[in-house]
């Protein structure tokens, strides 16, 4: 069950008298703004499209003296995450960002970060992976690292990219676990939207000071970080890591609730959009949720009972909450902006597993869309809803 405060019915109601600064920013700049407000101790930087404007903006803040972060301009993404690991183990607050090939290159270090329980915040801008080379949006690379022990939060808009960066930093440090905040390349990262940002002091106060108990730099209490383990210990460590990651189910609602108190914006594991009586449901994540909402509004005007289930918390995956929401639907289409070669698309597979325990299952089909930046049109979403309402399977690929 989702606690009542974790449900989010989207609305445009006024923000209860909280003064908020409205700004026009791209998703990348919105995340950079949140990073600036946090003013982390160390930020390793390496350029990759479409993440680059985020780090460019952060380096601009550094050059202007708006942050006093140690910016480390490294020679690869492998070193980005390696510097992040060294700095975080040392006791510093660490943030960075990457995309696609960069995520692939740093893959083995991602496991070191999570296996060492280091609270690094990485903004990921979703982009396709080679070959063929493609710099545009899909979620294949991000999904390919979803089982490496990081918390994954997916943003739909610039607003969410900003908010989740602040929430994610607090969450990472509360859990002692690294967090990825993912936004869609170009669609979110490069499109200007109006968003509300906190006053700097409020943002900084929300995230709080960072003073970890165990620090590599503590020479008076010397510790060895990264000791290797034989079969006698390794498995127990991994079980503990799995338990620790599941703490997100407790810590994320806490961090989100505290954030709601300062921002009047609430975040849950999921966002339900017009789901109360929805018979046909699209389940997706990221920017496609926005297009889906527009279609839902139009179809609702014609009396069609359609709704959206948007997944915000991708890892750990909220199986029970998703099953609970889908138990009331007649049919659902899982829309993946990713493929998993030789298997079910990532989100589709996860949602199918979530629904396995339901006595009364909705008819579930899965469609892959938007690979390498292929557009998703409202008409295509409308067709999916109409297929679901007609009891038909949706098409395997939305082309």
């Amino acid at each position, binding site marked *: 069950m989702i606690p009542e405060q974790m449900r989010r019915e989207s609305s445009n109601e006024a923000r209860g008298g909280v003064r908020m600064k409205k700004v026009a920013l791209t998703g990348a700049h919105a995340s950079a703004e949140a990073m600036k407000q946090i003013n982390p101790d160390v930020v390793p930087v390496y350029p990759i499209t479409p993440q680059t404007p985020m780090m460019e903006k952060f380096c601009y803040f550094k050059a202007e003296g708006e942050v006093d972060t140690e910016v480390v301009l490294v020679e690869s993404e492998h*070193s980005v995450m390696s510097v992040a690991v060294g700095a975080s183990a040392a006791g*510093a607050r660490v943030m960075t960002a990457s995309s696609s090939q960069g995520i692939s290159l740093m893959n083995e270090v991602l496991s070191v970060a999570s296996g060492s329980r280091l609270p690094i915040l990485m903004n990921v801008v979703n982009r396709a992976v080679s070959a063929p080379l493609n710099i545009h949006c899909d979620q294949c690379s991000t999904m390919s690292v979803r089982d490496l022990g990081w918390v994954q939060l997916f943003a739909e808009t610039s607003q969410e990219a900003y908010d989740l960066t602040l929430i994610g930093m607090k969450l990472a440090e509360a859990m002692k676990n690294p967090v990825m905040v993912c936004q869609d390349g170009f669609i979110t990262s490069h499109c200007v939207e109006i968003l509300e940002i906190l006053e700097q002091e409020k943002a900084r106060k929300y995230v709080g000071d960072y003073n970890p108990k165990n620090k*590599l730099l503590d020479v008076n209490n*010397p510790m060895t970080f*990264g000791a290797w383990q034989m079969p006698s210990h390794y498995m127990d460590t991994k079980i503990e890591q799995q338990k620790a990651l599941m703490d997100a189910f407790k810590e994320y609602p806490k961090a989100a609730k505290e954030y709601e108190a300062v921002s009047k914006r609430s975040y849950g594991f999921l966002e339900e959009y017009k789901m109360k009586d929805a018979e046909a449901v699209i389940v997706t994540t990221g920017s496609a949720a926005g297009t889906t909402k527009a279609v839902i509004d139009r179809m609702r005007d014609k009396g069609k009972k359609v709704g959206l289930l948007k997944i915000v918390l991708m890892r750990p995956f909220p199986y029970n909450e998703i099953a609970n929401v889908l138990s009331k639907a007649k049919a659902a289409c899982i829309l993946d902006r990713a493929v998993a070669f030789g298997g079910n698309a990532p989100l589709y597979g996860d949602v199918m597993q979530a629904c396995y325990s339901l006595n009364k299952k909705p008819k579930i089909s899965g469609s892959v869309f938007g690979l390498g930046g292929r557009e998703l049109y409202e008409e295509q979403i409308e067709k999916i809803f109409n297929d679901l309402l007609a009891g038909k399977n949706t098409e395997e690929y939305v082309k």
Partner: protein
Amino acid sequence: MNIRKIPAVTANNVQNSPIDNSVQKTPKTTELSIKEFSDMESNFAPGHGSCSGCGFPMIVRTVLKAAGKNTIAAVATGCLEVTSTQYPRSAWKIPCIHSLFENSAATISGAESAYRALKRKGKVKENLNFVVFAGDGGTYDIGLQSLSGMLERGHKVVFVCYDNGAYQNTGNQRSSGTPYSAHTTTTPVGKAIKGNMLFRKDIVRIAAAHNIPYVAQAAVHNWQDLFEKAKKAFSANGPAFLNVFSPCQLNWGTPTDMAIDISKLAVNSNFWPLFEIENGKYKLNYKPSSTAPLEEFLKQQKRFRHLLLPENKQYLENLRKKVNEEWDKLLKQCNEGA
């Protein structure tokens, strides 16, 4: 723990703040007797699992004696790491981090950057030294990119390569630090091919090409030289790199009590010259009064034994030629007469 009397020289342990640009004077090690040196507190504990007669524990202890207590170490995956950090034990009495094979330089770059940030914010009070230990695989090969990045960015870190001439932790596979003609499991001596047919990568000059303040080559048997070089490295105003000869009895095929002798022969035969490059200036640190025959060095080691067979004379001469060329080049760079 038995904390012994520390001789006066350690009071001069150089612990520059990374922001401090002053170059401190290097203490003279000639004042230090072998007794005093061995009595100095070592922050690398006994009881680790390295092979008997292995070279690197002596290198680590010597470097850490020069570094002092307030030092943060990173180790690359390899022999040193697996023999000193098996959970739940650790041989490290100073803070130590292991992340992966190729990223020890980047990992320590992160720790050193964190130090700059936290020192500025008053969250760290002490002046700290930073040191990396990696084998030749983690330095010459897979670790070269992150090492280059660390040197280029100017992190105040001492990177120590314990060079045992191959991937010894995985059982003696060729690295780009493997000497010419050496037998390894991936360059076995066979009927058609006589071991490693490539010459070593010139890692010391590659490090020096980053225009860092201090680069040196040392060998495990000469503790005074290594200690002094480590002191200079830690007092350098920027990154420093030490390449240290580290015999591997297991895979070089030498008796377990020969590490020091082999190391001496390597230097006395001009196979492994002791030199340093301080602010771009080359200096030869040791010149054998009479050069030992290369064969004396080679014949002690199974990995080179085939070179002494008459049918392989050509390979021996190839190696000798290279050693002589390198020695002559070095003498010129050091402004030394032949």
